[in-house]
């Protein structure tokens, strides 16, 4: 099980993603405000953050900059989602770890989430091994 934080201005999308990811065993905190979500992410240090690119109080690149610019969240993988035609390019430029274009289906979402979580756990294990071999 992983702890996921999801930010989107559409409550229906948040709710359905929360349900879907809960079905596969993850715990999802949902936020409609980018600002609040960033504060919560710094406190709670989730395993993964899902960010929509267009939100009323902050755009995706601003949220990403705040997350990547803070020690508590700089290594947290970010999955960007967007309905914008050039969303993938914007997300890549801003440093998102993966991008999903809306609309996506359940399998695409679950695959993307699991891929980022697995990558993170490998990275953590590698760091642990490096630290152990230094001793």
């Amino acid at each position: 099980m992983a702890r996921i934080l999801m930010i989107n201005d559409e409550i229906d999308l948040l709710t359905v993603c929360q349900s879907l990811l809960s079905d596969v065993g993850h715990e999802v905190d949902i936020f409609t405000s980018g600002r609040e979500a960033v504060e919560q992410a710094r406190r709670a240090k989730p395993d993964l953050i899902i960010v929509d690119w267009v939100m009323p109080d902050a755009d995706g690149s601003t949220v990403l900059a705040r997350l990547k610019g803070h020690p508590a969240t700089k290594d947290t993988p970010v999955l960007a989602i967007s309905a914008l035609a050039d969303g993938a390019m914007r997300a890549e430029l801003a440093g998102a770890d993966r991008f999903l274009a809306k609309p996506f289906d359940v399998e695409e979402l679950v695959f993307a989430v699991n891929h980022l979580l697995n990558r993170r756990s490998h990275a953590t294990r590698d760091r642990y091994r490096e630290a152990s071999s230094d001793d």
Partner: protein
Amino acid sequence: MVEPSGDTTSVPTDADDRPRILLAESIERRLQDIEARWLERVEQEIAGSARQVSATDLRDAVAEYLRRLAQALRGGGSIESGGASAWADVAREHAVTRVRLGFDVDQLIREFILLRRVLFEVAREERVITDGVQSERLADLFDAAIAAAVKSYTESRDHAARRVQAEHIGFLTHELRNPLATATLAAGRLRRKSELVAAESETLNMLDRSLTRLRGHIDAMLMTQRLDAREVECRPIDTCLGAIMPDATKAAELEASQKGIEFAVRYDPEIELHIDPGLTTSALQNVVDNAVKFTDRGRVDVVADNLVDKAIIHVYDNCDGLADEEIKTIFEPFKRAHSGKAGTGLGLAIARRAVEAQGGEIGAESGAAGGCHFWLTLPKPPH
């Protein structure tokens, strides 16, 4: 003074040159006066009836334009000569500023007419227009300027309209994709969670099909807009027909077998091409899908011709046929010739843009007894 006998494009004699040069000098000397008189009339006649426009915007660079006009007059020669073409250039620039100010084309033309009127007044006051030929020369320059300005105005206005339309389409597709994303996920969750009985499963299939079609329409709309705005990059590579044909005809083949119509593809897969595979697949797929969609009985044939410099893909169908008027607009967006069939009316528009972006051509013809023949050309590698 002897009345010149030649036309305005004949090489002028010294005697011919003099009044024209005097007129040019008068324009340069009385530049500010001409500008002020013109501005006053434009304000009275045009701007008063339109929106509030500042004097600076209204004046534009008219003093500079007048200097160019004086140069064009000095230059003599034909209307296509250097000085005259520089004067036409400023007319084009001026037209673009008028699109931004919201002038209509009549107001733009009126501005030029008012300027010409002021110039004739000044010329009369200065007693520099002494014969018909010199007035004709000025009139010719103005006619050329008005023609250039109207053309530039139309292009600039169309460009602005396309940009606004592209923004609207971008906004609309974004707004449509958001609820579509939620609906797709909600349908997906139902399928994963429930022990579905056959009827529920069929209902979910229907929902999936509708959502997929909706997604296809939104993508097609965006693709058309992006091709129109030349936002889609064309990246041609050397490949062969066998690398794209199966993908491009797969969906149509399935649809044909469901409809019970014959579907045959005959081509040499080794035919070499120099194309953007994505754009070409999209173009071909849209044309072939279209043929199957509108053929309810009979057959659809896809055939490739291998010419020296290009390949031609022919698609023959057994649709009800198209009227000549329909053929003319079939590749325009939202021009669906046959009613009663589902679709966005964008497929063939996308095909045309995708083919033309690669320097190819696309066309259609209808047989007298029904049935259509669509064809598109694809470039081959240069040897």
